[in-house]
């Protein structure tokens, strides 16, 4: 007969063994699901998987998620915490040992297999050990953050699987309702709700998302600890709901502080010191299409989303009396002091229209745009910026002299060329873009280039098809979803990230002839450039006298006229 209690680690292992005895079928299902999913993903490389394989992956993922949820909830609820009748409460079981046993179960049956399966997948894909291990560990961490810990937190707050599922659904729908109510208060008289946040689809989205994730981590860990060490279910439930509310609303925090934080992460802030922005009233464009032709979009997807968002907002705002939308305002700008060889990205423009007595008539955002390498040698660029101002504001103040205040959040990006890739290549190692491979698509209209990396592929790359012997090139194609997340915070559930780009072999409109077509691919190569942020900075532009009617664009879809010829407004100046 022993006289001393067994050491903590031994008791945690003892409790884990008891749980395993009860739950081994789910444990095996979890491990097998991880391995199967990794295998399926491996066989779907390097290009997009067939529909059948994708459907199989989706089914396996669903089954795996169900198995893991059941495993976590049942393992935790073997010693349910809420309630006063559980036998374990009167046993000399250390709460620390109990928690360790459950964490052990998470590590051995869920996160261990995630890491192991991803390591196997990475080895099978030919990646070296260190990046795979790093990516697999980060992936496991991401899974813990968004999946295991929240599920565990729900499990410690409930007594059965049914209660856990119903509680999770109740909390989800309650929070959704709260969000809808808040939006209804913020945007009254609308028929649909916009769930987007101001930083969504921008490079700084990671800031509030990271804060939101940190809140989630803190809340779930606090709930679990509170339950295991204080067994105060009421407090823990309140904390859980309150924490989730904070988690849900954190990404709604405003743009300005997010970008201020982003500026701390500038690699080379001095690179932007010379850049200034001015209003250039002498250059007057009335045709929106012509104005847009002046500059190249780096973030096509982002631009499209921004436009769609603005249109949606506009659509659902209270309509003006005649029901017509106002044409966009085209603002001629002059950027000077642009460093050679860098790309300037306008992350965000906050605009405010103020009338003669100082009342704000409108505040909103301008469209994002990019300035590629300044071509005219003097470091200047002359873009037009589109400002979408609601029709009722334009109608009300079209002929008034207003003050236009613009605050620009900008990022300088430095391109970095990677070694070229043969146009028709099997997989080839790239230093930063991971492994890349190319093939002609089924219709023969484009060259598909797929890159994948253990970890993250660079968020912004450009590709151009070039004849190896000469200087002939097809148009450059960008694949940018700009995000400025610092390396230590870059992680996702899938440790192997993809980037798929299509390089067209002829102009779909037929207007332009592309020099490299399907027949010349044998001698062609793909030039890949990676764009990394160099400096984040802001500039302010105040135009003291601005008349909306003077700068309305003439577009075929709109009937708003422009008498810009009469307008000679004074130029504003930027303030660094």
């Amino acid at each position, binding site marked *: *007969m*022993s*006289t*001393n*209690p*067994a050491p903590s680690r*031994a*008791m945690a292992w*003892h409790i884990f063994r*008891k749980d395993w*005895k*009860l739950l081994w079928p789910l444990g095996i299902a979890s491990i097998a699901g991880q391995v199967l999913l990794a295998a399926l993903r491996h066989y779907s490389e390097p290009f997009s998987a067939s529909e059948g394989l994708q459907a199989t992956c989706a089914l396996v993922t669903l089954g795996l998620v169900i198995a893991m949820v059941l495993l976590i909830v049942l393992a935790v609820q*073997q010693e349910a915490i809420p*309630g*006063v*009748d*559980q*036998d374990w*409460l*009167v*046993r*000399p*079981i*250390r709460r620390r040992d109990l928690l360790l046993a459950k964490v052990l179960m998470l590590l051995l049956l869920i996160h261990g297999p995630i890491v192991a399966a991803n390591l196997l997948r990475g080895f099978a894909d030919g990646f070296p050990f260190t990046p795979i291990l790093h990516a697999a560990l980060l992936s496991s961490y991401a899974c813990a953050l968004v999946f295991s810990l929240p599920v565990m937190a729900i499990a410690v707050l409930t007594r059965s699987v049914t209660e856990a599922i119903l509680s999770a659904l109740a909390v989800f729908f309650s929070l959704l309702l709260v969000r809808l109510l808040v939006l209804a208060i913020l945007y009254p008289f609308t028929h649909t709700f916009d769930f987007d946040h101001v930083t969504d689809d921008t490079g700084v989205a990671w800031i509030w998302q990271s804060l939101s994730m940190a809140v989630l981590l803190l809340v779930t860990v606090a709930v679990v600890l509170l339950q295991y060490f204080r067994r105060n279910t009421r407090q823990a439930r309140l904390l859980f709901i309150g924490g989730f509310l904070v988690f849900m609303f954190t990404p709604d925090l405003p743009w300005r502080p997010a970008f201020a934080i982003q500026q701390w992460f500038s690699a080379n802030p001095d690179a932007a010191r010379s850049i200034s922005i001015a209003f250039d009233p002498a250059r007057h464009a009335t045709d929106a299409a012509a104005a847009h032709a002046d500059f190249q979009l780096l973030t096509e997807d982002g631009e499209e989303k921004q436009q769609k968002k603005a249109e949606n907002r506009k659509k659902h705002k209270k309509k003006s009396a005649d029901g017509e939308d106002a044409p966009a305002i085209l603002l001629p700008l002059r950027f000077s002091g642009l460093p050679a060889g860098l790309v300037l990205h306008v992350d965000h423009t906050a605009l405010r229209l103020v009338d003669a007595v100082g009342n704000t008539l409108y505040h909103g955002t301008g469209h994002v745009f990019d300035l590629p390498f300044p071509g005219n040698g003097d470091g200047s660029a002359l873009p037009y910026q589109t400002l979408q101002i609601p029709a009722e504001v334009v109608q009300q103040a079209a002929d008034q002299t207003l003050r236009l205040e613009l605050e620009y959040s900008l990022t300088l990006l430095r391109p970095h060329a990677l070694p070229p890739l043969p146009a028709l290549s099997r997989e080839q190692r790239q230093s930063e873009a991971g492994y890349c491979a190319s093939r002609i698509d089924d219709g023969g209209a484009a060259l598909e280039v797929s890159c994948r990396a253990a970890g993250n592929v660079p968020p912004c790359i450009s590709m151009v098809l070039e004849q190896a012997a000469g200087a002939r090139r097809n148009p450059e194609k960008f694949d940018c979803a700009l995000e400025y997340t610092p390396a230590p915070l870059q992680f996702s559930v899938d440790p192997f990230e993809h980037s798929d780009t299509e390089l067209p072999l002829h102009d779909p409109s037929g207007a332009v002839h592309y020099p490299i077509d399907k027949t010349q691919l044998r001698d062609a190569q793909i030039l890949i450039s990676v764009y990394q942020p160099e400096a984040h900075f802001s500039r302010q532009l105040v135009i003291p006298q601005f008349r909306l009617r003077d700068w309305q664009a003439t577009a075929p879809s709109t009937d708003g006229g422009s008498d810009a010829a009469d307008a000679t407004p004074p130029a504003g100046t930027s303030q660094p």
Partner: protein
Amino acid sequence: MTTASVVQADDVWKSFGRIDALQGLSLAVPEGSAYAFIGANGAGKTTTIKLLMNMLAPSRGTASVMGVDTRRLSPEVLAQIGYVSENQALPRRLGVGDYLEYLRPFYPGWDRALETSICKRLQLPLKRRIGELSHGMRIKVALACALPYRPKLLILDEPFSGLDPLVREEFMEGLLLEAGDVTMLISSHELGEIESLSTHVGFIDAGRMLIEESMSDLGARLREVRITLEHPAAVPANLPKEWLQPRAFGNVFSFVDTRYSENDLGERIRALLGPVRHIDAEPMPLRTVFTTLARAARDGAIQ
């Protein structure tokens, strides 16, 4: 000389929302005693026990078990306490044998031979899952899980509830034969079962302890008195408050004397009721004590 209390509660309150389940309850279970904790349904017995086992936290007041505040019961203290309750939620998916095997390492004093003996005596089906067992069998499993480590304190909360007489007898046999030298706190409505082993009694009503004393003292001071008078009996208006449940029929007057004293009873009766033909004062079984006190408490005769 006073005996040290193994269980002590001082002015303990427990509220569930607006309901005060315990209202300043105080209790002391002396070491080596078998304490019968009795009271009507909803009086607060189970709440008190759950509070003593740290399954619930008191709203006010303090309680201690084996000298340790119940809010700080360590595994070392819990390893010396056996607990059996009618509501005890044992792990349903584990087999009986598996559960005993699981519990062993948590108790440094676990005696395998005693475990085997208890399981044999209680005829436990070691291979079957706990969830598949009847209520009575589960209670026996709970007892089998509470005795093999020879606890110093055994807390039983309605252990006989729902048990048929045979199982009840087996349970009591198991308890009396295997428990050894232990302090016991038993809450039960089966007063006949616990009377023989109880040394102390605590009567709780509406969350307050109304009577708490040793069985011998209680037996000595509580008597069912039956008086045959010389004339037709009637309940006097100025009845002493320690006389409970007065009844008169024919020449007979009966009551429960809660301050019985052989020396002056006759004198007091004669002074109040007149000439007496015969006085008969009988000790009361625990069941009658309980019903008398419960009725008196309900009617506000004792507070």
